[in-house]
């Protein structure tokens, strides 16, 4: 970035120190250490372009959920519904594309499918946001409810049997496609991270997101329409889930009814590992993108160590509680020291 005005040196150095001391850097460091460990343990197996790329593609959907969740959690709320909304949007998207030619459908069908997936996510976000803001039901309960509704609806509409009516062009050019040599799912996730990061850290809306999470009453008195901010946040989170649903269809060619049950939890862990406080007020999207890969790398490495991959769920659960505990202790220290 070039600017004409000179940067005062002291604040710049302080800002740099702050970045280096941040949770996101700690997470990135942890990730590098774990990756170095697996590279040493499995030379020529872990640190291959193919393995890393597959890993990134596998976790690109969770990154999309994580971007939305970062916004929600920065505003001191939860969204437990994104995993179920992802599957529900897969179902509606496949139904729409199935009616437009199924596997033989063209780009028109794909675009409609994308619109239906995004629309489903936005609708779910609107319902979540509206109930949280207007009915004043706590977000954890509202989204637990919509999780159940979306999951139930997905099973009711399919009878519990996966649908496969995904256009071949979508599988070939999006799920398996490449842009500039990079798999499309990675590019989509990277774009989402870039845009999300810009909005949360550089814009007025990002500022309002932090303010509502840190002290909602102060934000309200400052003239911020905190209800509108909250609904917009759930729309963002819902859109992320819808887009993740579309990308999942493109990759697997199936509604994958049973495959995303842990996505929500994994995304949540990524958000928390990435330095977003569970108590709101601070969050970074880039941190989330890094944080999401810690459970990813762990499960990848566990498979190579020929440990049952199910161990990752046990590890994820324990790490989640530990990270939140550390965040809590840090917060307590800061407020009492003031």
């Amino acid at each position, binding site marked *: 970035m070039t600017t004409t*005005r000179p940067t005062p040196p002291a604040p710049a150095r302080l800002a740099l120190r702050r970045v280096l001391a941040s949770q996101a850097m700690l997470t990135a460091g942890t990730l590098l250490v774990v990756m170095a460990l697996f590279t040493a343990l499995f030379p020529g197996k872990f640190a291959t372009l193919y393995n890393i790329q597959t890993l990134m593609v596998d976790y690109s959907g969770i990154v999309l959920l994580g971007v939305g969740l970062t916004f929600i959690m920065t505003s001191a709320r939860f969204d437990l519904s994104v995993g179920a909304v992802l599957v529900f949007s897969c179902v509606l998207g496949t139904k729409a594309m199935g009616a437009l030619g199924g596997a033989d459908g063209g780009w028109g069908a794909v675009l409609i499918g994308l619109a239906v997936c995004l629309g489903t996510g936005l609708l779910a976000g609107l319902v979540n946001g509206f109930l949280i803001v207007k009915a004043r039901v706590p977000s954890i309960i509202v989204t637990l409810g919509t999780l159940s509704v979306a999951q139930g609806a997905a099973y009711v509409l399919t009878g519990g049997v996966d649908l496969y009516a995904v256009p071949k062009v979508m599988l070939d050019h999006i799920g398996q496609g490449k842009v500039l040599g990079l798999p499309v799912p990675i590019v989509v996730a990277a774009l989402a991270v870039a845009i999300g990061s810009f909005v949360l850290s550089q814009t007025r*809306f990002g500022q309002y997101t932090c*303010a509502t999470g*840190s*002290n909602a*009453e102060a934000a309200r*008195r400052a*003239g911020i329409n905190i209800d509108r901010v909250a609904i917009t946040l759930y729309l963002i989170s819902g859109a992320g889930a819808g887009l993740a649903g579309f990308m999942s269809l493109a990759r697997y060619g199936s509604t994958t009814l049973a495959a995303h049950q842990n996505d929500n939890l994994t995304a949540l862990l990524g958000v928390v590992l990435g330095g977003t406080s569970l108590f709101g007020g601070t969050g970074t999207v880039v941190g989330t993108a890094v944080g999401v890969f810690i459970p990813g790398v762990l499960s990848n490495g566990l498979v190579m160590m020929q440990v049952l991959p199910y161990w990752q769920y046990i590890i994820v659960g324990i790490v989640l509680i530990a990270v939140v505990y550390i965040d809590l202790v840090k917060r307590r220290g800061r407020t009492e020291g003031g």
Partner: protein
Amino acid sequence: MSAPPLLETRGITKRYGHVEALRGADFTVYPGEVVALLGDNGAGKSTLVKAITGTIQPDEGQILFEGQPVQMTSPLDARTLGIETVFQDLALVPDMDPSGNLFLGREILRPGLLGRLGMLDRRAMHERTVEAFTRLGVNIQDAQAKVIGMSGGQRQGVAVARAMVWASKMVLMDEPTAALGVVQSRHVNDLILRVRDQGVAVVLVSHNMQHVFEVADRIEVLRLGKRVAARRKADTSIEEVVADMTGLSVTGAA
């Protein structure tokens, strides 16, 4: 005071169910003065403050600003008139730095396309914050540190500076020294006088008689939802004001 009042409330009444918090309260603020609004607990001070800042709507009565009747339907109306409030809880966002707090809800955006995308001009906000701190003598070493790590006095400084930066006519301070030590309270006094010296009126709501007598030019007293006294500090004493507040004779007030 011969100048016409800056703000005047006339016969403000506010009922909460059977309770009459204000029963025809009058209150006057002259331009560029420090006026203390005193009253015992339950006298109606905070209700009157809320009416002036647009947080609540009175059932009866009138608010005149610069001689014109005004409707205060939200805190934004008060702001538009150049009235800022330092709330008792300070209403700061702890996870933001001082400039984020100073400009909360009134952010400066980048010029051009980036600004239209909602991008903040952090440098401009930071520079204006540092400039305001210097002008007001608010001592904060690291203006990019989060408020959460600051002392009570520093937080007070940030909240007062925010009100100062935006208030063109009047600053309302609700119990500004309630949570502060002696040294910090003295510093708030300095701030109040500096604000007044820039021609902005200060309304000081306080219990702290010592504090009021140090900085106020005038004192108005509420009792049971009505104004019972309006005195110039030079012509009164703590005993007399306490008597006004309690309704007891001077000898009975201790």
